[in-house]
């Protein structure tokens, strides 16, 4: 199975080609859906097989590289289409294909009746293809191919309904924004690659990482590399300052938000940092930066999430904030914890989005939670799965969210400091709050929607994935039980990934032992926070809705600030976008190009014209004048002769 790993990449491509080329011919949605999700399913099985095969192998043989063919080989640059199987890539592959498969299935129902159904599945398959490239690549360039590929797919899928309005602007605006912001990140990533190549003379992971250990490279260089890479990561994973695109990305169909903007693509940044852990580990300052950015993003995104009313917006900001968590983990050197959270988050966030999707589906694309309410009795399955997911993300034991989140919190305290922990815990609290605000406004209470709407449970093809995900979200955490509970055989997930991070860990070497007591204490604390937050939310939005309104009134300024997402978009427009546009249009083009440069060109022609029009007057037509000129010439010539002797 392991050597067949490239099939997990190629199959989605095949699916894409089939659906893309013949899709418009095939009228039958069933077939299209079958092809679309089938290929993903198969890839998942292959990945699964590879995974178990890997488990069977001793640790030192677990890495394997499958090379297809050489891509670019110039000078001493040699990059190939080569895929590597190792613990990390397998975990990611499982997440992507698994969750991806479920979402494909879900989409069959969700996109039912859309006029370009085939296009949707083609794009989704293409996305999976790119994503697999990203995570299975054995070198930076191939990773970058996936990196940009997923960006493209997200562009295509956000703009899928290219003729629809979205908020103030259009879906295509959102799409463009996403792509361009990603590009800014990629710009950093590119520079990172160049610097790596310059430093290590290669772009293959193994060579680079081994040389990163053996070569003696200045911390500054490592710092730069790490910084550049991290810029890339912030773009892809929507961290400060490049997080602005993700909320707008909700313009796309909900399954897309679930797959791309929650479960998989946005975690690519995290994956990349984990993959290059050694480099980051060699640049502690940058690592600290990562941690800070992560923590801040987590916190602020959460604050914004509290006040949003669009169901998908809330989830979007929660995603940003969860991603912040993961980067916090990375920042404090808890790489495996981060990956662990990537996994659990993939489960419950995908679940949340799909649930939201099924709600939106039921409510005829009404997304304002203020217009929901009491859906519990209309759509029980959705309700139940959504509740599980909400509990999971709020970190209620023993759901998966609890383990991953708590591990991060713990490390942020253990390897980081209290400040991180406080931010993290606060975020956790807020998360619990707005999640349940969302949950309650949607499912509990009395219906607030008009009688024209007749909500109904979604078809099985949509609910089954929900249930599967719900199970995963519920029990998925058990593979990563912290050792204080699991005892001697430690944290499974940890041990599985450990070999990949050992170099990094050695570099960091921060296992200053804290007592179990602290760990347990913090754990209890966070749980208490979460529970209290949930209860508070329940109290506010179920018992006394007035409070919410009043507080909103009382802190009008703060409310507006949050409601408008700290005016970040507006700030960017004012500070960056418009100035560039203005200078380009009114100076560079209209002045510099048309006036100055062309002015010189045409001006010289003009001058010659004028000169000639005036000189021709010399030709007066009087013979004597001509003679005079001649004689003058002679005089001059003679003077020259006389003087030259």
């Amino acid at each position, binding site marked *: 199975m392991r050597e067949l790993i490239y099939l997990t990449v190629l199959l989605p491509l095949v699916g894409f080609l089939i659906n893309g080329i013949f899709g418009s011919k095939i009228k039958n949605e069933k077939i299209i859906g079958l092809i679309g999700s089938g290929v993903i399913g198969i890839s998942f099985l292959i990945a699964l097989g590879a995974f178990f095969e890997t488990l069977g192998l001793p640790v030192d043989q677990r890495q394997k590289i499958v090379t297809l063919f050489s891509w670019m080989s110039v000078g001493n640059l040699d990059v190939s289409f080569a895929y590597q199987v190792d613990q990390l890539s397998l975990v990611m592959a499982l997440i992507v294909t698994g969750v991806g498969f479920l979402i494909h299935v879900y989409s069959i129902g969700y996109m039912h009746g859309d006029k370009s159904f085939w296009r949707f599945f083609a794009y989704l398959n293409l996305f999976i293809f790119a994503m697999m490239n990203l995570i299975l690549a054995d070198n930076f360039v191939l990773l970058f191919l996936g990196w940009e590929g997923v960006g493209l797919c997200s562009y295509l899928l956000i703009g899928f309904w290219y003729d629809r309005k979205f908020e103030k602007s259009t879906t295509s605006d959102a799409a463009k924004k996403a792509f361009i912001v990603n590009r800014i990140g990629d710009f950093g990533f590119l520079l990172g690659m160049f610097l790596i190549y310059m430093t290590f003379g290669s772009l293959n992971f193994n060579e680079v990482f081994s040389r990163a250990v053996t070569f003696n490279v200045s911390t500054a260089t490592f710092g730069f590399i790490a910084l550049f890479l991290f810029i890339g990561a912030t773009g892809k994973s929507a961290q400060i300052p490049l997080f602005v695109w993700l909320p707008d990305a909700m313009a796309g169909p909900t399954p897309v938000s679930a797959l791309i903007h929650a479960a998989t693509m946005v975690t690519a940044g995290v994956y990349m940092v984990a993959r290059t852990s050694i480099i980051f580990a060699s640049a502690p300052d940058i690592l600290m930066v990562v941690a800070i950015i992560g923590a801040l993003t987590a916190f602020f995104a959460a604050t914004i999430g509290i006040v949003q009313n669009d169901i998908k917006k809330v989830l979007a900001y929660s995603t940003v904030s969860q991603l912040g968590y993961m980067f916090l983990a990375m920042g404090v050197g808890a790489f495996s914890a981060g990956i662990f959270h990537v996994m659990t988050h993939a489960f419950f966030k995908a679940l949340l989005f799909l649930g939201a999707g099924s709600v939106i589906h039921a409510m005829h694309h009404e997304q304002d939670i203020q217009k929901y309410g009491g859906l519990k009795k209309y759509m029980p399955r959705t309700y139940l799965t959504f509740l599980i997911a909400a509990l999971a993300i709020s970190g209620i034991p023993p759901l998966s969210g609890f383990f991953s989140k708590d591990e991060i919190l713990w490390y942020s305290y253990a390897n980081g400091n209290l400040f991180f922990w406080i931010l993290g815990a606060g975020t956790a609290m807020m998360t619990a709050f707005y999640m349940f605000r969302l949950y309650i406004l949607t499912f509990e209470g009395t219906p607030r929607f008009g009688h024209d709407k007749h909500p109904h449970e979604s078809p099985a093809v949509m609910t089954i994935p929900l249930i599967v995900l719900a199970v995963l979200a519920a029990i998925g955490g058990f593979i990563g039980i912290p050792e204080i509970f699991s005892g001697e055989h430690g944290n499974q997930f940890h041990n599985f990934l450990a070999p990949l991070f050992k170099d990094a860990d050695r570099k960091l070497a921060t296992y200053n032992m804290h007592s179990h007591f602290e760990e347990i204490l913090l754990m209890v604390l966070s749980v208490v926070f979460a529970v209290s937050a949930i209860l508070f939310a329940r109290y506010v939005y179920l018992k006394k809705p007035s409070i919410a309104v009043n507080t909103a009134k009382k802190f009008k300024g703060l409310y507006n600030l949050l409601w408008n997402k700290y005016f970040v978009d507006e700030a960017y427009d004012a500070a960056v976008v418009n100035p560039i546009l203005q200078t380009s249009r009114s100076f560079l083009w209209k002045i510099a190009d048309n006036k100055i440069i062309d002015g010189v060109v045409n001006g010289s022609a003009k001058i010659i014209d004028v000169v000639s029009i005036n000189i021709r007057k010399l030709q007066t037509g009087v013979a*004597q004048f001509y003679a*005079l000129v001649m*004689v*003058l010439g*002679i*005089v001059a010539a*003679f*003077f020259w002769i*006389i003087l030259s*002797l």
Partner: protein
Amino acid sequence: LEVILFFVFGIVAAITAVIMITRSNAVIAALYLVLNLASLAGLYLTLNAQFIAVTQVIVYAGAIMVLFLFVLMLLRPENEQKFLQANPKTKIFAMFVAFVVFAQLVYVIFFARPSQNISKDLAKSVEAGTIEAIGRELFTNYIVPFEAAGFLLLAATIGALVLAKKKFD
């Protein structure tokens, strides 16, 4: 004697020349030109160039100038106003320029001092000026120019014919 002759003829030539270009009446100017040419012939004689002197009188002072006078009579152009009356500025400037040329020539002549390497040898110069010498040269070495001159005159005749013919055929 030679000295006197030179000065007499020379001064006459110079003066007549000046008068020639300053007379407003064309006919008078022409007549002065004739005089000037004649005096040149005299100078040629002092230089022992008999043949040239004679031809000068016959061809130039005779033929050519007669032609001029004919034309003048024929066209009878109105007199110009007095020299230096019409737009004097340009004329003075022109005079000045021409004078500069003169000055330069003089400078050249004095700078070069041809007399240093040219000393007059009476016998030879007399010999050179004789009709025999010239004739011999003309019909032996200089036959080609001579023929050419013939064609030149032919062309001129035809041309004059074409240009001055009264009516076109």
